[in-house]
């Protein structure tokens, strides 16, 4: 029996098996301890070169990855490009070829286009970690959310988790939906229909149009950030109105039949999708998510890095068969 492995790249949770997801979560556990040490560094990725390629502004994710890389002793280079002056596609192909020519080992990429991570992964030998591609997936965020939920419950299997807010434009939502479904959770989404993807029920999730119903149903709420530009694009009338109709407030939570665990991938718009008293309240695990983020990313880097390409290839084939 081949031990579970992730293969060459981490592109999304949709293509992972439950076993692979559990492998990442289990592997993250020992890495939590490394970050608690006085000397927060292990030599595991010594000599590995990792490029953090960010075509979109990001502070948290990039910093979290950087901490994870440095704590594993990897050498890192950060490349940021807004992609505004150059045509994105040309840059991506050329960047891929240039990176390959510099003999790097791994690329962590964020890109505004869905599918961009897969595009890159198919064109370079280095490992590719998707740090968010368009509105498609943000797998490390999904995994750290899963880890945080698992930390607080005995098991994810059978839990009721509702993802609230702008599902339409959210890669975090998609990664969460796949991960939660694969680990056996019941999943719902809640938001105005104008911010829900067409046919989302087809993925096997429930839909709530009222936040009160979502709160009554759920064990866990994962509250997404409402991108402020959605208002100017006409998806919702105003932030004030959004808070009034969809905001997760203390009053609404207190009316719930049970205590809920509150997650938010950050950064928060306090007083828009989430009330400050909820964010800072006893059921919020928002800061644990941040802590877990580093451990999950260390686990991913550890699981993907190195190894003989032939073995990694064989493992990838097995993965594919396993995923059928």
């Amino acid at each position: 029996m081949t031990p579970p492995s992730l293969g060459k790249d981490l592109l999304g949770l949709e293509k992972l098996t439950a076993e692979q997801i559990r492998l990442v979560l289990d592997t993250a556990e020992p890495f939590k301890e490394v970050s608690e040490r006085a000397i927060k560094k292990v030599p595991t990725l010594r000599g590995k070169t990792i490029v953090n390629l960010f075509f979109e502004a990001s502070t948290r994710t990039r910093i979290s990855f950087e901490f994870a890389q440095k704590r594993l002793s990897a050498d890192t280079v950060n490349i940021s490009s807004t992609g505004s002056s150059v045509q994105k596609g040309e840059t991506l192909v050329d960047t891929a070829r240039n990176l390959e020519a510099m003999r790097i080992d791994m690329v962590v990429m964020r890109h505004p286009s869905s599918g961009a991570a897969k595009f890159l992964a198919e064109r370079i030998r280095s490992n590719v970690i998707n740090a968010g591609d368009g509105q498609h997936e943000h797998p490390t965020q999904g995994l750290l959310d899963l880890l945080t939920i698992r930390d607080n419950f005995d098991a994810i299997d059978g839990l009721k988790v509702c993802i609230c807010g702008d599902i339409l434009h959210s890669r975090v939502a998609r990664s969460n939906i796949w991960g939660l479904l694969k680990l056996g959770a019941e999943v719902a989404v809640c938001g105005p229909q104008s911010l829900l993807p067409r046919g989302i029920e087809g993925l096997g999730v429930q839909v709530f149009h009222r936040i009160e119903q979502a709160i009554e149903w759920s064990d866990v709420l994962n509250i997404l950030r409402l991108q402020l530009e959605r208002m100017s694009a006409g998806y919702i009338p105003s932030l004030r109105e959004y808070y009034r109709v969809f905001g997760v407030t203390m009053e609404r939570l207190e009316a719930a039949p049970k205590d809920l665990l509150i997650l938010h991938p950050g950064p928060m718009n306090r007083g828009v999708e989430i009330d400050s008293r909820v964010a800072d309240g006893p059921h919020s695990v928002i800061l644990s998510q941040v802590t877990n983020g580093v451990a999950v990313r260390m686990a991913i880097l550890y699981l993907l890095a190195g190894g003989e390409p032939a073995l990694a290839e064989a493992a990838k084939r097995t993965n594919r068969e396993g995923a059928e």
Partner: protein
Amino acid sequence: MRVCIARRSISQRHGVSALTDVAAASNFRGDMGSMHTRTLLDSAAIAKALERISREIVELAGGTEHLALVGIQRRGVELAERVAKLISQREGADVPRGAMDITLYRDDLQTVGPRPIVGETRIPFDIDGLCVVIVDDVLYTGRTVRAALDQLADFGRPCRIGLAVLVDRGERELPIQADIIGESVNAPGKRVDVLVSEVDGRDAVELVEASE
């Protein structure tokens, strides 16, 4: 074949049991059935050896006041627990215990295939100024101990680090020697399996060789 066995010395201790590890090593190609096993130490002999080891550890540390034990995952952790219990019964002192998984410090991570599972590392005390005795089941190439020493250095600066092993089977690849040894075994080309009841259901040290 022989070289292959030696190279797997570190990973061997990370399997659920030594036997499954052999099954995973495809180089053995199905001659599983013709394995020949001989018991080197039985349960009573292991108990006796641990008793002696526990005395020598206290001797080495000049008492229990500054002594701490750190077992190496997996079976070293169980052995350290037993040694601590023996010391506690005899000396009445509760010796601090820690556990270390050395996977992240391995020197062969780049060449192995799928990533090994990382076990727990837990050292819930400050090691500065202590006499830390590393406890492991088998001393072989010395690479695990090298990794353990590096890892321990990241936790602090003990005044002394010792090494106690149940079995020393020689064939070192690094200049590392144990301070305290339960049993020395000369077994080139063979495998030495340490089984502990907490993990394997019984206590034994066995010599395994492939018969012709």
